[in-house]
């Protein structure tokens, strides 16, 4: 079984993001890290590979400037077998649909039984790319998976809902998106880290894949997030909890 996990390299969220003043696109340093939310997809993929055994492989597919490959290496160190990167200057600031088209081309070329993606990326937050990708690949899409099981040539997931979960299944090939926090992503161990730089990484351009990106996205303006209002302090004279319950009910949280 050939499992592909879509991962994204993003600027380190611990450092302040810079925007390109001309385009308002996020400036991409050479050194990018693995999007934290993608670690869940990689973990789910690795668990499947371990369950299936010998003939399962895990390929990372990423559209991003390769840079130092730091983020990709992190996922390889966790245990992925190889990576395909689509690095092409014309993809700067690509919108979700363009990204989906490019990834679809790479996935079709390489072949796959199951594609795993995160629910949304930490730097873009569009949250639509995986479904577009499933459509372009013409495979069923199972979203918000919190538990994944293979059953012969079917894949079954527990799909997170507001109230609980649904059990949904699809025949392979298929695509699924993984919700953050559903599994405990493993730490890359030192042997994995040492091996990561020896694992194969193929870099492709749009021309290699025969796609012509036409990004439709223009960022008109960027506004800073308004500063957070100071919170309200509830004095507790023994019955503070009642006031808090009232607040939570008012906010319709409970």
């Amino acid at each position, binding site marked *: 079984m050939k499992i592909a996990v879509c991962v994204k390299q993003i600027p380190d969220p611990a450092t302040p993001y*810079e925007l*390109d003043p001309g385009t308002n696109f996020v*400036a991409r*340093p050479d050194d990018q890290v693995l999007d934290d939310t993608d670690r869940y997809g990689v973990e789910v993929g690795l668990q499947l590979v371990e369950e299936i055994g010998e003939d399962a492989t895990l390929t990372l597919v990423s559209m991003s400037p390769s840079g*130092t490959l730091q983020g990709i290496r992190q996922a390889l160190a966790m245990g992925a077998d190889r990576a395909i990167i689509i690095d092409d200057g014309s993809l700067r600031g690509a919108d979700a649909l363009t990204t989906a088209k490019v990834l679809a081309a790479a996935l079709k070329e390489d072949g796959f039984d199951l594609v795993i993606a995160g629910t949304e990326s930490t730097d873009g937050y569009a949250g639509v790319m995986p479904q577009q990708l499933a459509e372009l690949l013409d495979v069923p899409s199972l979203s918000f998976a919190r538990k994944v099981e293979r059953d012969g040539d079917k894949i079954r997931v527990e799909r997170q809902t507001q109230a609980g979960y649904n059990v949904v299944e699809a025949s392979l090939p298929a695509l699924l998106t993984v919700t953050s926090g559903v599994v405990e992503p493993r730490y890359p*161990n030192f042997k994995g880290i*040492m091996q*990561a*730089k020896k694992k194969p990484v193929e870099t492709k351009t749009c021309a290699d894949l025969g796609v012509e990106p036409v990004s439709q996205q223009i960022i008109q303006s960027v506004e800073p997030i308004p500063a957070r209002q100071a919170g309200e302090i509830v004095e507790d004279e023994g019955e503070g909890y009642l006031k808090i319950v009232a607040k939570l009910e008012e906010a319709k949280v409970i």
Partner: protein
Amino acid sequence: MSKGAVGPRKPNPRDFLNVDALLDGEDRLLRDTVREWVGDRVLPDVADWFEEGYFPRELAREMGDLGLLGMHLDGYGCAGTSAVQYGLACTELEAGDSGARSFVSVQGSLSMFPIWAFGSEEQKQQWLPGMAAGDLIGCFGLTEADSGSDPSSMKTHAKRDGSDWVLNGSKMWITNGGVSDVAIVWAQTEEGVRGFIVPRDTEGFDTNDIHKKVSLRASVTSELVLNDVRLPADAMLPNVVGLKGPLACLNEARFGILFGAVGAARACYEAALDYSKERQQFGKPIASFQLTQRKLVDMMVAVNRGMLVALHIGRMKDEGKAGVEDISFGKMDNVRMALDVAREARSVLGANGITLEYPVIRHMNNLESVFTYEGTNEVHTLIMGQAITGIAAFS
């Protein structure tokens, strides 16, 4: 930061000189992995462990899974990292707690290293994989109650009896002693000091944990008692005779400490920096006062300098060029630096600085042990003193 962007950078308060840029991607990935693990598994509970005087044994296996145990050794289940990477891991562990770093130092450099460097092939096969995995915990017995800085005065001895060895004596201040599955014990023989691999369940071998410590509490320190401990001939490490055996192990561990101490210092500096920006007195954050800024800057400079020294010595070690004196330089000065930083940070935190709610006094107390073990500050001073004067002043 983007490609082609030029111009002066703004210093990052947590990495002022951008020492990060001196590390390659693999170094950083390894460092960040340890940092994250420490953040997840050590920091949340270490104040309690310290208070209770407890080291959670299950951490050993997690450390083994990560590859922390014997990480700088090759083969036998060890990761085979560079010296710099071993050092960076120690920095992150000790930014958590000196106890966690001590555990890794003792396991990798003091227990696994002697087997790896001086053991027979059978000994390596028998012990190293389990120790690398964290299934087996080791300890290193050199010091005795009456033999500290001068290990040549040790009384523990091993006598031949047929092909067997019989060991008698006791060892004191032994990290991991009480939780160990195997002890590397150094003893006098007719041919000089030799190392022995003593399995925990050997008859006549016992341990007593040392209580009432106020330093390195999240680490087990014990006495080892050897009462007619009979070992087969193949329990002896065949490939080293004399004190150079244990000293070679200590050199490995001291190398980890010169990086580790920087981690403890960094944690104290960062705690003081954060605190000083939050804590208000006289209507403003205490970081606004010139005296506080002087302290913060002194600490920051010391931490950066310590890291540069560590990295420099680490690079020399990777090239096979670091001498004993270089390690003494780093161990002596970085631990002293860390202790100074911890005390300065303690003062910035005021009364809060004396509680375990903040990491500072825990580090400060821990560093008192680090100052003394693995060659005291004075002993390392004398090693360097001898190197620059040509005169030995030890006795």
